[in-house]
């Protein structure tokens, strides 16, 4: 009966327009996403090219190993390609500044610093996974050993990380990524030239040279990463904004 009455009433009377609907909606507290949700959402915003290049490099290494075996020349080819992975990673981290999104991102709840840290974290893990994968594939096929091979492959990568971050931390231009691209090309060519010209570069007697270069570039890269994070934290880059 009640249902029938309600139905009848609806047909007889028009419902009044809601009064102060917007004000009421504004009072409602909507549930907010937590930090984990935010972290997961950011994975989706990493560009496809990062995943594609990482996958291509891994597949390329597999194909190369199948056809040519793990020679010294194959090691320098892989080590000359790895800096391009770091270039894609760094361009992803510096993307906010490149595309002038930095000011908007800085004003958000999860600001530019947090976005940058999450990008560094996700991409660092991806790069490490690709690197370890390649290392595992190659180390079983050569007599270089896991650590030595790791140093040979990672030193040009670290040099590029240092060079590119050095540029990003000091440049105020939004075209920094192009300069980083030039740095990467230079590192890759230099690595190829050294490996071709000095054919005993991977021999046991040069291990001190490699160890020193590896430690030096690792420390310098780390310093530049810290500087990059501090730059976001201290808002020092703001001096580049117009008054």
């Amino acid at each position, binding site marked *: 009966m009640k249902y029938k009455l309600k139905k009848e009433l609806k047909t007889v009377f028009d419902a009044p327009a809601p009064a102060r609907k917007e004000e009421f909606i504004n009072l409602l507290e909507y549930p907010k996403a937590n930090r984990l949700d935010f972290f997961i959402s950011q994975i989706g*915003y990493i560009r496809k090219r990062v995943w594609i290049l990482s996958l291509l490099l891994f597949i390329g290494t597999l194909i190369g190993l199948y056809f040519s075996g793990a020679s010294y020349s194959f090691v320098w080819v892989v080590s000359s390609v790895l800096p391009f992975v770091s270039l894609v990673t760094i361009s992803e981290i510096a993307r906010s500044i490149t595309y002038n999104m930095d000011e908007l991102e800085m004003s958000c709840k999860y600001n530019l610093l947090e976005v940058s840290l999450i990008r560094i974290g996700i991409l660092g893990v991806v790069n490490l996974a690709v690197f370890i994968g390649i290392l595992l594939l190659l180390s079983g096929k050569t007599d270089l050993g896991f650590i030595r091979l790791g140093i040979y492959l990672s030193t040009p990568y670290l040099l590029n990380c240092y060079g590119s971050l050095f540029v990003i931390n000091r440049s105020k231009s939004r075209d920094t990524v192009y300069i980083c691209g030039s740095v990467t090309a230079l590192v890759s060519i230099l690595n190829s030239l050294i490996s071709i010209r000095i054919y005993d570069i991977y021999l046991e007697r040069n291990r001190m040279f490699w160890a020193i270069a590896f430690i030096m570039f690792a420390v310098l890269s780390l310093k530049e990463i810290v500087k990059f994070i501090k730059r976001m934290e201290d808002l020092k880059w703001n001096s580049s904004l117009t008054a």
Partner: protein
Amino acid sequence: MELVIDRLSKHYKNKMAVDRVSLTLKEGVYGLLGANGSGKTTLMRMICGVLKPTSGEVKFNGIDVSEEKFRDLLGYLPQDFGYYPEFTAYDFLLYLSSLKGLTRQRAKDRTSELLKLVGLSDVAKKKIKSFSGGMKQRLGIAQALLNNPKILVLDEPTAGLDPNERVRFRNLISRLGKDRIVLLSTHIVSDVEYIASTILLMKNGQIIHKGPLEEIIRPIEGKVFECLVDCNTAEYLIANYPIINVREEKDKTFLRLVAEKAPCKEAKAVTAVLEDLYLYYFNKEANKSEQLYGIN
């Protein structure tokens, strides 16, 4: 609801961009009016926590500008903003929703609502790079509203909008000012005149006047004159009085100017408007530019 700005300053190497600005803002629309380079953008950036002040502080209900809680209550439209090239309007709003801490479902709902509000529903799936300046500006306004902010800071929100769009946004901003603090900067005087409950006039990094329209134009009330004069009188008046408007009419010149008393017998006192006050205060700069570009 109270936004307190206390002795806020920004000092660059050889320039004081903002000089000890102190304000207390409550619900309503505040129009920040000033010439280019007067410090409007710098002040707004500091209020949004995007720029670190040299000294002073900004607090909203006791929450400092550097805190996450403050940013959670903030909506900001910068004067110039970019976008990732692969983004559509929908992606752009979803991305910024994630940064503003909205849940996925809420972000989708809010994005659709706001795209409708700013009239971009039809092009929601189109790349932003294909948008006109006005469309980008509308998208910028939509992103500022994603988190239903309590403090809304809009730097030149009507720049690039056509007259119809400007009127729509003026109405929207007026509505928004009912239950939040809206601070907007512009040098389009009519925008401020129509929507701002309080006008802040900024010059050389300082707030030189603040108050409602009636109060702010009081200093030049009864001092604005219009006259139609011959060429020689016009030259004399232009050289000696702050000129608001000049128009050539056949063999005579029409002038609108500011003077303590009638500057010539043809002059008639007229009602002062905000544009008169603005041009009066920024007249020196305008004259300097004219000299610089050789305009006489």
